[in-house]
């Protein structure tokens, strides 16, 4: 197993994943994620994008291989230490997974509340974040009353409010119009400038051109192609494709 370099926050080495006794949905996946970098995860349906994201946001343990996350071995990480690591990861689920009994405000505040942030400390950032994603007038709305695009923005606001070290987003622009998609990319880029590693799974190839310094993680039938080695040793910003 290769050791993690000092600045990489995530390192996968020959990771394989299978569900039950089925065949591997991910095979020999190796890459590194670095702070402040923007990664697009692409591939056809069934290529294993969601499975790879699940490994990234610690919803799944791999069947084999090694994963290092924030300098720790994530394979043997005790279960009671997972919450601390998950709080460093912002996740935008494909189907948003907003809590239906909570308002938009409470959904966005949730990561801060579970982290023990006092109510007085979270009111302003949550309000500002909702304003940032254009939902200042929908703070009290329940998810069921929000449109698909609005729900998606609440989900994104919930994922980024805690300023995660890594943001993992599964098709975050799937339900919004092209203009809003670009705006959301700008939000992710801004987060990247604060040092967050951003991983966005998408089918939308046009989106890739909107973030010039991004790196492409292309999955094909569970295998990650990295012919240039850029996913292990990324070029300096401004030089990547």
């Amino acid at each position, binding site marked *: 197993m290769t050791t993690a370099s000092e600045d990489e926050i995530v390192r996968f080495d020959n990771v394989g994943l299978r569900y039950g006794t089925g065949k591997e949905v991910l095979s020999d996946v190796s890459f590194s994620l670095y702070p402040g970098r923007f990664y697009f995860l692409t591939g056809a349906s069934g290529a294993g994008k969601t499975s790879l994201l699940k490994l990234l946001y610690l919803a799944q343990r791999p069947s084999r291989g090694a994963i290092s996350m924030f300098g720790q071995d994530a394979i043997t990480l005790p279960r009671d230490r997972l919450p601390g690591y998950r709080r460093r990861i912002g996740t935008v689920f494909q189907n948003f997974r907003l809590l239906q009994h909570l308002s938009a405000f409470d959904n966005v505040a949730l*990561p801060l509340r579970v982290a023990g942030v006092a109510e007085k400390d*979270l009111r302003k950032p949550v309000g500002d974040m909702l304003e*940032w994603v254009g939902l200042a007038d929908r703070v009290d709305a329940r998810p069921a009353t929000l449109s698909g695009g609005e729900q998606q923005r609440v989900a994104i606001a919930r994922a980024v409010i805690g300023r995660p070290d890594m943001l993992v987003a599964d098709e975050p622009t799937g339900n919004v119009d092209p203009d809003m998609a670009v705006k959301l990319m700008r939000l992710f880029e801004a987060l990247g400038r604060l040092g967050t590693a951003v991983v966005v799974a998408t089918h939308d190839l046009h989106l890739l051109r909107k973030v010039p310094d991004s790196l492409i993680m292309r999955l094909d039938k569970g295998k990650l192609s990295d012919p240039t080695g850029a996913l292990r040793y990324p070029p300096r910003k401004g030089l990547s494709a």
Partner: protein
Amino acid sequence: MSGAKGKSTPPVVKDSVRRGWRPLGASGDTALVPQARMSGPMPWLIAIMVAITVVAAAGALALGNMAASTSASIEGGVTVQVLEPDESERSRQVELLLPALQGLAGVVSVRRVPQEELDALVEPWLGEEAVEGGNVPIPAMVDIRLRGEPSSAAIDRIEQVIAPLAPDARVDAQASWLGPVFDAVESLRWMALALIVMLAAATSAAVLLAARTAINAHRDTIEVVHMLGGTDGQIARVFQRSIALDAAGGGAIGLAVALLTILALGLRFAGLGDGLAGQATLEWNDWLALAAVPIVGVFLAMATARFSVMRALGKML
């Protein structure tokens, strides 16, 4: 993102409050899971369990008090019945017995039971006429108090002393004829205890089942909270709080029903007079113990809920 105009940095929280390395507070926990009530009938189930437990416990305590009180009143007691039919001879024999018994080792006191007491004892069965007319010869009785429980050796010594003085006299240890009663009371107390244990087990089982159902109903929400960094403890607290409210409400209702039942039964038992049943009373500390039953029930339900929820959450990643 109209509000984002002019801002290049998203309004994420500051380093000092992010990542949650601070101790976990419970303030926001209540909102984690939607109305995680165990289930509708849970308060009523707990009410029934508490009511039966309190009544059973009250019975056990009252029986215990009755046994203790009776036992104290007859402790070391030995009764000598002088059966001589002739009244003057009977009195003579008693007069001879009293100093002889007083001189025995281990005897604390010797008392001739006054005729009025004997008359009062037999009057309900024989009638006023028979007692006042002296038509029925009533044995004379001598009440002896020994130091400690009367042993068969002590009884033998008493019999040896009285045999030459009152040949028809009979000696009885008071505890011996109440022994079967005490045994029955003890059995009832154990039964009550077993009933309480079974009720506690049944309550725990019901809470366990309800907690599992609630977790399954909210599995998706729990998964999301986990993914956002929520701990098992935070999630379990929501269920604990919910079952505590259910148990407290049900326990209060159950206690009220049980107290009314006990008071009604108490009135019935009071009508039985000052006999053995009349001594089956409850002291103030017994009432405190009964009042503690729903509190214990709340803690039992909370502990069961926490155990079952933590166990179920432990199976999730």
